[in-house]
Each structure stands twice: as structure tokens, then as C-alpha cells.
């Protein structure tokens, strides 16, 4: 490990100076580390430091003025930012678990199917390959209450579907449905993990009298938990950056195109699809309040880090408990 190498005692000369061999060794270590150090510095340390710096300024991309904590104070009263935060956390709390559970369920089902398994795998995986913009546009049209095939069929059958994407109460559930439809990414890694669980464990458990639930709880779950952790962590990070589907769904449902001269307010209907990254983008690249956008970026950074640490700790605790 690189960190271990750095802790090795360096040979010192008579006057306490680092010997030539020691210096050479240190340079060698640094040379090996340099690609990582360059990447870390360029893509993490510098952006982080610059973001913190700009967050104390009024910066419109052309002029820059130090404003102290003004941008942070503005955040406290920015209703749109809090709406965006609530919406994003709603998606993290609902969409991520749903996708992981649904992906696990589908994968579990696919491991049991004897005929037509390949076709079903393709059926569940292909929606994930469709570009998000096309998929979202299609989804909004398919669920359009006036002309969409699903609402029309539902009406013929004597019931009505909710007005997804035009009703503030149903817009996020609509986006969640879209997320479940494109569950292929989660499904495929969980399927691989499930197929890797040794059959002998199930056989031994069955001989000991373990039922289906006990086998799932004490064999399947602990074995696939690292993959579940991966799916949950990447799912949380992706959802904290949820942008395209929400932006496109809002625009298409509102009948707004990005035409020159049109005014655009993200979040249709009624701010229900306004996510935190959309608000960050709007403040940074439409209003050009870059200093304030940096405050929003820092908030997102802290939340993403907190979620990741929490999830990793939970899964590690769960795996450790099962190992005992």
C-alpha cells in the first residue's frame, strides 16, 4: 500500500539529514503516486478549494466580489432550494430502495426461470440502454391523460390513471415508475451476484430444515450484501445528481420547449420535479449566481458524503453481524 510505504523510516545521515538513498526512495514513492496525486489534485482538491472560495463571493462569471456569508444566508431563505432538497431526498428515500428491491426481485425471479430466461433478461435490461431523454419523453407521452395509450386503455376498462407529470402529487411517483422501468443496471449486477451464491449452502440449509425465507435471509442476503451496498451507494449518488429525467419530464409535460426567448422555470408541475442539481444548474448557469451555486454544490457534497458513509457503515455492520 502506498500509505504504508510512506510511513517507512527514512535513513538519515550523521547530521540528521535524509540520506541519498532515502531521498531516492521518497522520490520513487512520489513518482509512483504522482498520477493519483495529479488526478486527486486536479479533479478533487482544486475544485473543492475553488468551490469553497467562490462560495464567499458574488461571481457572475465575469466579475467577482467578496460577499462574506451572504450566499449562505440567502440559502436559509431560498424556498426553491428547500423545495429542491425535499424533492431530491424524497427520490433518495423512495426511488433508491424501490429500485434495489425491484432489481433484486427481478434478478431472483430470473435465477429460477428455466425457459426463456435469456429473453426475459433482455426485456428487463434493454430499457436501461435507452437514452434517458428519449425514455422520459416517451414515458410522458405514454402516460398523457388525454392521448396516452395507458390512460386510454384504463378508461375503457372503467377506471382512470392518475395524471402523472401534470399533477404535483403524482409527478415524483411518475419519475419513480420510470426509474423502475429502467432497472436493468441494478438487476444485472444482482443477477450476477445471485448466480455466484454456492448451491451447496442452500442444500446444506435445506437439509437443516431452513425454509425459503430463512435461506434468503441467512444465505442469499449476506452473500450478495456487498453488491447490494454497491447498488445502494451508487443509487444514492446517482439520485442526488438526478437531473435529466426530471428536467425533461417537467418541460415536456408543461409543453415548454427550450426555444430562444422563452422563459423557463424548472420543476413543473408546481415545483414537484425540481431537484437539487436542477436548482444548482439554474442558479449557476442560467442566473449566473456562481457564488451561490457553489454553496449549493457544497451542500450537495456534504449530503452525498454523509449518505455514503452511513450506507457503507450499515452494510459493513450487517455483513459483520452475519459473519459472526
Amino acid at each position, binding site marked *: 500500500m502506498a*500509505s504504508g510505504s510512506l510511513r517507512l523510516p527514512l535513513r538519515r545521515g550523521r547530521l540528521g539529514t535524509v540520506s541519498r538513498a532515502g531521498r531516492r526512495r521518497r522520490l520513487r514513492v512520489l513518482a509512483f503516486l504522482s498520477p493519483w496525486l495529479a488526478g486527486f489534485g486536479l*479533479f*478533487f482538491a*482544486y*475544485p*473543492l478549494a*475553488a*468551490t469553497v472560495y*467562490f462560495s464567499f463571493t*458574488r461571481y*457572475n*462569471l*465575469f*466579475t467577482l*466580489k467578496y460577499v462574506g456569508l*451572504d*450566499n449562505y444566508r*440567502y440559502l436559509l*431563505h431560498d*424556498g426553491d432550494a428547500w423545495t429542491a432538497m425535499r424533492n431530491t431526498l424524497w427520490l433518495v428515500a423512495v426511488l433508491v430502495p424501490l429500485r434495489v428491491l425491484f432489481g433484486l426481485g427481478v434478478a431472483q425471479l430470473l435465477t429460477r426461470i428455466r425457459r426463456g430466461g435469456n429473453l426475459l433478461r433482455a426485456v428487463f435490461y434493454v430499457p436501461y440502454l435507452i437514452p434517458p431523454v428519449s425514455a422520459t419523453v416517451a414515458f410522458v407521452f405514454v402516460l*398523457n391523460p*388525454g392521448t396516452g395509450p395507458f390512460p386510454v386503455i384504463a378508461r375503457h376498462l372503467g377506471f382512470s390513471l392518475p395524471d402523472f407529470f*401534470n399533477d404535483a402529487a403524482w409527478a415524483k411517483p411518475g419519475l419513480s415508475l420510470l426509474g423502475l422501468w429502467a432497472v436493468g443496471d441494478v438487476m444485472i449486477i444482482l443477477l450476477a451476484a445471485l448466480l455466484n451464491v454456492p448451491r451447496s449452502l442452500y442444500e446444506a440449509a435445506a437439509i437443516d430444515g431452513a425454509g425459503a425465507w430463512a435461506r434468503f435471509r441467512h444465505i442469499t442476503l449476506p452473500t450478495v450484501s456487498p453488491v447490494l451496498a454497491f447498488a445502494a*451507494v451508487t443509487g444514492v*449518488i446517482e439520485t442526488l*445528481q438526478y437531473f435529466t429525467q426530471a428536467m425533461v419530464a417537467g418541460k415536456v409535460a408543461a*409543453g415548454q420547449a*427550450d*426555444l*430562444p*426567448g422563452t*422563459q*423557463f*422555470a424548472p420543476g413543473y408541475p*408546481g*415545483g414537484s420535479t425540481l431537484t437539487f*442539481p436542477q436548482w*444548482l*444548474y439554474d442558479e*449557476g*448557469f*442560467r*442566473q*449566473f*449566481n456562481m457564488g*451561490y*451555486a*457553489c454553496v449549493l*454544490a*457544497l451542500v*450537495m*457534497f456534504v*449530503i*452525498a*458524503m454523509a449518505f*455514503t*458513509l452511513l450506507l*457503507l*457503515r450499515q452494510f*459493513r455492520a450487517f455483513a459483520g453481524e452475519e459473519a459472526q
Partner: protein
Amino acid sequence: MRTSTTRRLAAALAAAGLGLTACTAGGSGGQSGGPKAEEKQTIEVWHGWSAPHEVKAFQDAVAGFHKLHPNITVKLVKDQTDDRITNAIRGGNPPDVVSSFTTDSVGQWCQSGAWQDLSGDIAGSKLDLNQFPKPVQQYTQYKGRRCAMPLLADAYGLYYNKALMKGEQPPRTFSELTALAKKLTVRNPDGTIKVAGFMPSAQYYEHQVQHLATQFGAKWLTPDGHAAFAADPAVKAYLQWDKSLIDWYGYDNVKKFLHSMGQEFESSNPFEKGKVAMAVDGEWRTKFMQEEAPKVDYGTAPAPVPDGQDARYGSGFVTGTVIGIPRGAEHRAAAWEFIRYLTTDTGALVTFANALGNVPTTIASLSSPGLTLPPQFKTFLDVFKNPASATTPPTPNGNDYVVKFQQFVQDQWEPGKAGDLDKALKDLDGKVDASLKLAGG
């Protein structure tokens, strides 16, 4: 364990850090001199027009310029939005000339320096700004910094479908409009709207708040630049009229009607399809009517005014396309020559106005006999010349206050979720003022 904690921290940092890079990308460009106007060169011009007849009109105007300046080749890039323009300037690779339909953003561009100050060019070319009407001179500068020139203008008025009007005359007041809208509306057996007399919702295309509230005399901002929604009786008058007519239709019916509308700039537009009897729209619709609905017999008139304000009848919302030189443009001198030609040459403006169906922006071109626009167009020339016509004031954060008001109207007011109107408007004032302060206003 220390190692696992370190790893977890590293994983979390790497994951969370992805969101930060967006905030710090790019670098600002600087002012550049570039080659002299007489040298052989190619300039790149970004504009927002996209319809085939609009794009051709710009190409024709460029052909006239190329005859005068054969050494300058103009490369046109159509369908450009303000966001793309600003991001190109920010990215340090802007075109030489940019144009925008968003007059409200002039304050933002002038104050930030995103568009270069043209005062020196105007003085150097001995250009007389009095050749433009006063409102035009106003909306092309911000606090004395003139960073834009006017390239055609837009004026708003009332379009009415003569067949659907059933012999009625266009309304002059909002009371008359309301009565006529109710009279001309045709409903389906289930109560939904088949033909709307007039659709008041701010979500109906050009019935956005700035176009209709201006008819009520909304001031938008106080003289010292603060939000004036709560204190402005014209804003409340607009909102109450809007809500009362929406309630007459039924909000659910309005929503259904709005969701069934076609595209604004295609032949599926409901006015062109005969699904609305009257609509407020820009002068450009005359051109679209010619191209997309030549069989529809329609008339135009100034948009109505509130009762008791007869003197203001004839005025309307005006705005305009603006053109300028972005910060970092490589061929500044040639860019200015192009802008000067396009914005002041009567022949070019008249040709352009005829082709686009827009209002020309110089006094000479407004009265040019060369204007060959349909008879319905006269309404818009008159609205444009009317001294009571108004536009929304520029601010350091563009039309953010208009967007916020539009959001309030469509998300809270029209669905009936706003509660106490005075309190809601005071809250809106607070939001707008805080946002203006954030942008340095």
C-alpha cells in the same frame, strides 16, 4: 479499523466530489481587438430564429451586407438560446455577433460585461441614436452602458377569428373581453372546452404574465429597483380578472384545454386551428398565419385595457430582438460593421421586417413605403409607435422577477392555492428582492 475508515472516507469523498467540478469549470475570456474591418475574414453570427422563412430572411439580409463588404464572409448559426450564448462567452469561445429575443436580459449582459459596451463604436461611426424610438433606446442599455443595438421589434395585440366572432367587434376593455369570451365559448357536453372565447391562463402561449399584466398597467419594480407586486393595484387587478375568468371555465377544464393544445409555432396552434376566438399574440403571428393558416379570416386590434383607462387603449407590450458583440469576439471591427448595417440600413431593415413579419426599429423604416406587410400588421406598427406602450424593466438578473411572478400565477394563483393574496404578493416581493440582491442589484 483505521484502514476501512480511510477507505470509506475516500470512497465518500470521491463520490461526493463529482458534484463539485461543475461549479469551477472554465475561465473568462477577455476583450480582443482582432483584424481591421477592411481585412478578409469570416465572422460568426448566432441568432435565435429557426423557422425556414426566418432563417432565409437572415440569409437575405446577410447577402446585402456581403455586397457592401465583400471581404467579410458571414457564417450564420440559427436557433441559439441565451444560455448557449452565455456559456459560449464563459467558455472563452464566443461567436463574433450574438442576438437574443430576451430584451429583459440586457441589464444582466451590460452590467456583467458579457456583451461589450458599444458606446465607442457608436461615437466612432457618428451614429445618431435618435433614429430609434425612445423605448428602443431604453431597452438596449442599462444604467448608461449601451451593450446592445435593436434589431427589429415585437409588439403585442389582439388577434380575433372573424368567423368565430359571429359579427362582434373586438373588445376595447377587459370587461368587454370577459363578456365576449363567455359568449363565444363553446363547450362539449361534459363541460370541457371545445372553443375558448379567450383563454386567460398565463400558461397559454403568449398570455404570459408580462404580456397581459402590462395591459393592466403593471409597473413591476419601484423606481429604486425593488419588487412592486404587493403595492401595485394593477397587478391585483390583473390577477383578479385572470382568476375570475378561469373559475368561470373551471380550472380542471382549463387544464384539459391547455394539455390538448398544439405547438405554438406550428400549424397546430389553437388560434390557427380555430380553437380560440381571440388571443393576444406578437406581430409575427401575421407571418405564421400567411404560411400556416392562409384560409383563416382574422383581424387584429390593440389588446384591451382596464375600464376607465380609455386613454391607454392602443398601447401594448413591446419588446425587441437585440444584437451585440460578446466579450472575447475575435473579429470586433467587422462585427460592428455587420451590426451597424443590420440595425440602421433602412433597406435591410425593411427587407428583414417584410420577411419575418417583425416591426422595424428605426423611425425611417417604420414609415417606409417598402413595407409590404398584410393589412393586419398596421395594428402592431401603431402599438409600437404608441407612447404608452411599455416593456418590462431590465435588472441585473434579467427577467428573473417575471419568471418568479409567472411561477406564482401558474402554480399557486390559478389553481387556487395562493391563500391570502396580499401576503402571497409580499412574499413574492421578498423573494424577488433577495434574488436581485444576490445578483448585485
